[in-house]
């Protein structure tokens, strides 16, 4: 990931802006990227130190220093360097330095240590040319490794990689992420919250007036003040956020050596245009579609529709229903179809339902999870619908009638 001195940013008041590579700036970035790739192409076999030096000679204006440094970093990260000598440099050093120490200690007051004599002595023992021995003495140092493979990137690909790395580099200094999500189906939302859990991040969820939800992500310690220790985990969320579709994002940062508090905003999209067109809600899961098309359900007057509603219960996580069932004159009832793998998930739903008294839920639970409908207290406005192969439409309608009538 890039450091702040490799990222093209602008600061205005308490905001940080990533300078877009557009128009002439993009043309220039492509030129520089192509120069860098060119230098690497012609440097195969050169030491890392020499490659870096060669790259440092690339002509550029002072105002382009960050861009050049960042492009070089991304390009070198994508290159392969390998040790130039097959000789064991550490073992060579041991031989040379112990011999030198021995000879120096034995010198009389007027003696002089001869480097050439030491190399000649040791190389004879090791059956090497003295020049080979001297050249291999520090061949295991990082800067001595040789370039064996240039990055498999064209100029435009290098610039694109730089742009992604810049965003990651900024988020590395993030203390908190704020995401406004709207119109996203339950499968993708669940996948996103699973990522938060996997990365041991915490979140708060609030409804937005204009619709949708605001998810604020940080870590356990963040309650005591902004912490950049979660920056890497927040940066690693970028693919999960991109998978959500179009999301308005903001990151609170501690930027630069002064750890200045800044806000950075961007629009995450899965396509380059930034438009949500083409991103459609995933189709209903097969079991739910089957239910919605059954005569018993159609005849009941209830309508099943995908929902983007989220219910957060602090300490328990977020409940992401699959669909909402509506009928004129009845309360809305949310349905969630559970998988086959976790009984705990069912008990957690029971707790959710108890802590969300104003909402009505039916949890569709496969019988192989071996839970009883009775674990849900009667006074709670929720039902566990246990089913063997597929949920029973007639029974579901009865449950909907009972819950819907509570309005």
């Amino acid at each position, binding site marked *: 990931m890039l450091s702040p001195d490799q990222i093209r940013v602008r600061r205005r008041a308490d905001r940080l802006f990533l300078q877009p590579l557009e128009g002439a700036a993009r043309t220039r970035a492509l030129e520089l990227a192509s120069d860098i790739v060119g230098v690497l192409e012609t440097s195969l076999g050169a030491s890392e130190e020499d490659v870096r030096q060669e790259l440092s000679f690339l002509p550029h204006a*002072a105002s382009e220093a960050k861009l050049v440094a960042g492009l070089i970093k991304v390009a070198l990260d994508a290159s392969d360097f390998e040790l130039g000598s097959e000789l064991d440099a550490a073992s060579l050093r041991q031989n040379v330095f112990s011999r030198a120490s021995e000879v120096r200690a034995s010198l009389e007051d007027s003696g002089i240590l001869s480097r050439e004599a030491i190399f000649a002595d040791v190389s004879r023992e090791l059956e090497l040319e003295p020049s080979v021995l001297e050249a291999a003495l520090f061949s295991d140092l990082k800067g001595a490794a040789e370039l064996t493979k240039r990055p498999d990137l064209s100029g435009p690909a290098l610039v694109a990689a730089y742009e992604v790395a810049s965003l990651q580099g900024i988020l590395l200094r993030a203390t908190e992420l704020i995401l406004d999500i709207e119109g996203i189906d339950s499968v993708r939302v669940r996948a996103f919250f699973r990522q938060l859990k996997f990365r041991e991040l915490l979140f708060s969820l609030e409804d937005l007036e204009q619709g949708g939800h605001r998810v604020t992500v940080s870590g*356990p310690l963040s*309650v005591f003040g902004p912490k950049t220790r979660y920056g890497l985990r927040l940066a690693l969320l970028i693919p999960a956020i991109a998978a959500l579709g179009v999301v308005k994002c903001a990151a609170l940062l501690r930027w630069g050596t002064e750890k200045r508090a800044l806000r950075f905003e961007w629009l995450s999209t899965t396509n380059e245009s930034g438009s949500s067109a083409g991103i459609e809600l995933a189709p209903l899961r097969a079991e739910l579609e089957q239910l919605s098309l059954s005569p018993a359900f159609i005849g009941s007057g209830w309508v099943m529709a995908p929902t983007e509603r989220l219910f957060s219960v602090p300490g328990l996580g977020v409940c992401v229903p699959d669909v909402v069932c509506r009928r004129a004159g009845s309360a809305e009832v949310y349905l969630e179809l559970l998988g086959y793998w976790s009984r705990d998930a069912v008990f957690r739903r029971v707790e959710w339902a108890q802590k969300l008294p104003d909402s009505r839920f039916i949890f569709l639970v496969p019988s192989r999870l071996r839970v009883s409908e009775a674990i849900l207290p009667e006074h709670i406005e929720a039902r566990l619908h246990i089913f063997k192969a597929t949920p029973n439409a007639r029974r579901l309608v009865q449950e909907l009638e009972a819950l819907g009538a509570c309005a």
Partner: protein
Amino acid sequence: MAKLRDVNVTVQFAGGTLRVLGVQRGLDLPGLWDEREGCLRVPAFEYAPLLRQIRRLGLTCVDEVRAYEELNLSLHEARAARPFQTESVAAWLESQARGVIVLPTGSGKSYVALLAMLEKQRSTLVVAPTLDLVRQWHQTLSSQFRVPIGLLGGGEHDVKPITVTTYDSAYLHMERYGNRFGLVVFDECHHLPGESYAEAARMCIAPFRLGLTATLERADGREVELESLLGRVVYSQNIVDLAGAYLAPYDTERLVVELDELERASYEAARATYINFVRQQSINLGSPRGFTEFIQRASRSEAGQKALRAYREQRALAFAPAAKLRSLGELLFKHRRDRTIVFTEDNRTAYRISREFLVPIITHQTKLKERSEILTGFEAGRYHALVTSKVLNEGVDVPSANVAVVVSGSGSVMEHVQRLGRILRQQGEKRARLYELVSAKTSETNTSERRREHAAYQRRHSTEGP
């Protein structure tokens, strides 16, 4: 309404914090209410005060936090402790087994930690700044307690009731293991008050805490934070107090060298470019942020970048002019049968010295196996000298070292005292000698003056060379 004593409180360790479940907002307990999980959240290092307060309020508490053990440790090679070691541990115990002990390098701080561990007999985490020190602690604890010792860091991930780790690994992993230790020892604890490392101390529940250091002062003055992280300074002795009795007697000598004609001309030209830019930009280099400001402004213009290159050039010339290397050659010859450590400010000069004088080198790039070979060889007399930049500044035990040559260094008093400390461990009739090579009429003269502002350098044995 339920009476307080009917309230069942559960305390859990969660990501370096304590999650308190079963309480309502507004109860008189430490910590903050966390809306995200609907619970009270308390910093892990307030574990003991939290439990005390829960008890004081008469609440029933289920403690799911504590995962450390009571041990049954004994020393395999017990030796009579030195008086100041016994006194320091007594002072620490009197302070509820919390606090910082300041003792000079080579006086036996590790043994103080062993005594503290014997007193408390709890799972212990030892945190040290470098992998060399981690290796050294691992050896000491293994040989003294004869129990398996865990290692965390440097590619190892093996947590045991007694574990050694680096500050970096402690920062990374404390959120997972912060409830596994009842005693935590921070070696070279002046590192702890950094923004990140301090979090390691806060994410750990250990009620017993010991900080060890030879030099408490930090350039940024943040050593005051140690009191909240570990406790107050409970005991302190300096080099001058212990030299002769418990540390080797020593002399220091400053050798001033001249730049040759060509070097002088290059130095003056580069310095003029650098200083002119600083003046043009009205940067006050004497202010705490002066140098950062210089770096920031230098990146914005061609002239700035030229000034930055000039700054580096004049610095490099002052660090390693030909005359310094000639003096070093003479010193290596003079002390060819002693054990000499050569210190530099930068790796580049260290590698140059290693290549030119054929002495082994230890830098951050030196692998653990080679470091061990060099240090063992140095102790055994296979090597009479070694060169390093900063990695041997602290803690690493090289008892036979009796000569130090500081070719270049920063203006830090702490660094200079630590470097002196490397040669002071008592061994037979040893008398230690530290040489400091300084380039005349360069910025290094002031740097040298700054780093010598310590009692250890204000003694009668301190002399000026030509």
